[in-house]
């Protein structure tokens, strides 16, 4: 069952064709990687799926319904959560509070309820807090709950951002370069977490440059180059694909 369907998506920025008729699907419960040289259009694709940008043409279907053109907060309500290439935590809030924001789509208390501090909102707050702590335990970071996000180490911040996305209880998780800037130990920890997330039933679509990670944990890989899809296959197939090799390593001199 394909949970995400990208169909003939194109996006242009002035003179640059960032994406050119790209199509692929993501199967539910799998980990799919999106790779390609810099400038291939990977983050643009993420921005299109998460609603930051609107495609010039084509369709994006999530669980069968079109989501292109929806605003980011609406996309989140549909069940898609994301992390960012450059960490976008809320700097002056604690790690726990950052993750609690992820529960926003699953809670209701509005302005009036908030101002009057009604009993049901207190209950809801406790619930939000509890669930967020649970996620921190799942990721093994419950120790830093009250630390200010700013003060955490880079690797820890990455995990908090992951936790925030998980708090949305997404059906699809978009990870934008989740291990960028992490050392080998942190990378393998992150890899374990991503697999754990898949085991929990969440589909993962990730953009990455770390080939080892990609080859190890992905079920399928899509390769983009200059805005076009040049391959879509299982990891083994991608490794042997001559087009892919050409794009990454360049042509062999005759």
């Amino acid at each position, binding site marked *: 069952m394909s949970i995400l369907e990208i169909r003939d998506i194109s996006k242009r920025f002035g003179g640059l064709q960032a994406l050119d008729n790209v199509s692929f699907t993501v199967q539910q419960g799998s980990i799919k990687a999106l790779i390609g040289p810099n400038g291939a259009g990977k983050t643009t694709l993420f921005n299109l799926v998460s609603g930051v940008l609107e495609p010039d043409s084509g369709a994006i279907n999530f669980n069968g319904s079109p989501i292109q053109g929806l605003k*980011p907060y609406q996309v989140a309500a549909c069940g898609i959560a994301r992390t960012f290439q450059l960490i976008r935590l809320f700097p002056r809030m604690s790690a726990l509070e950052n993750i609690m*924001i992820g529960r926003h789509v699953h809670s209701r208390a509005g302005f009036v309820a908030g101002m009057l501090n009604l009993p049901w*909102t207190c209950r809801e707050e406790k619930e939000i807090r509890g669930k967020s702590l649970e996620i921190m335990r799942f990721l093994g970071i419950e120790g830093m709950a009250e630390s200010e996000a700013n003060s955490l180490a880079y690797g820890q911040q990455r995990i908090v951002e992951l936790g925030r996305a998980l708090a949305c209880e997404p059906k699809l998780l978009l990870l934008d370069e989740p291990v960028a800037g992490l050392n080998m130990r942190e990378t393998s920890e992150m890899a374990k977490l991503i697999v754990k997330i898949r085991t929990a039933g969440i589909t993962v679509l990730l953009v990455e440059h770390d080939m080892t990670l990609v080859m190890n944990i992905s079920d399928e890989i899509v390769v983009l180059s200059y805005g076009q899809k040049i391959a879509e296959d299982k990891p083994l197939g991608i490794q042997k694909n001559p087009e892919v090799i050409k794009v990454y390593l360049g042509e062999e001199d005759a």
Partner: protein
Amino acid sequence: MARNKYLRIAIFTACVIAIQIITSFAGKTPYLTQLTMAGYYSLVIIGLTLLMGYTGQISLGHAGFFAIGGYLSAFLTTYNLIPYKDKLVVTWLAKTGALVMRQDLYGRDILAVQPWAACIAAVLVTIAIAYVIGRPVLKLKGHYLAMATLGFGTIVYKIVLGTGLLGAADGLSDIPGFRLIPGLEVSGKAALRIQNYYIAWGLVILGVTLLTNLIHSRVGRALRSIHGAEDAANAMGVNTSQYKQNIFILSAVFAAVGGVFLTHFNGGIGPSEASIMKSVRYVAIIAIGGMANLWGALSMGTVLNFLSLRGYFGSYDDAVFGFILVVIMLLAPEGLLRTDLFRDIRKRFQHKPSQEEQSP
């Protein structure tokens, strides 16, 4: 945590009571008048603190909302409808109990809207106006936003200054008292001075309580997230433009209520309440109190407004607040501007890892 946040409010309430007792005891009951007025200005300030401090939206025109509330209630409660007694609208209004027959200062009979109805009408109109201009204004950034709010405030000022019906340069006066419930009246009568002091500060305490609750709620968290990283907040399901608009409207309502009550307390209102200088004053107070610091703004606001109202700044009133604004912005622009600084630097150095720089 819950106990903590109410503790401050409790201490504040104690201070309010203490100040009244001390002032009365020291025989300086006239001081209570200025303190009461300072209280109503504080309503504007706490609403604006929420807007500026927690969502990072600057408003240089909030005096406009204060004036809209004040002028509307002033106009409605003093405009004589007797000449229109037979019009359908008037008879219908009379049936709903919104009108009252009374005598004005000169003993003439007038038929006007009664204060409660006028207050509700003023608040509703304020909400409508804030809704309409909020949406486009909040889409603007940086100094475009500042200019737009400045423009809004100036328009309100020019309109009240230039409209005969609203008293033009002299403003409106002879505003009747506002009877909240039997026994509690907002008016300038000397005998009710202490009562009015508590009405004003009671309102402030109520406002602070509501806002404190809000800040600690899901909404407050969402607001802080918008302030911290708006795009990320959006991606996490926070409808950022809706929230910003709601806060704008909420802060406008606070300002308008302050305007309504102060008008009834003073028995009048003039165009100066809508002036840019008043708006700048509010911004300066919030700046010096610490952008997202409700208590800081409240205390600084009370002190500065009290001194200003008692005339301690003499003819240099505006200069003092202008000076404060410049000095604070130069030396210690916390909160709102810190984050803009952060974003500004990030934008300029996209490839460098994001680290917040300390301002000098």
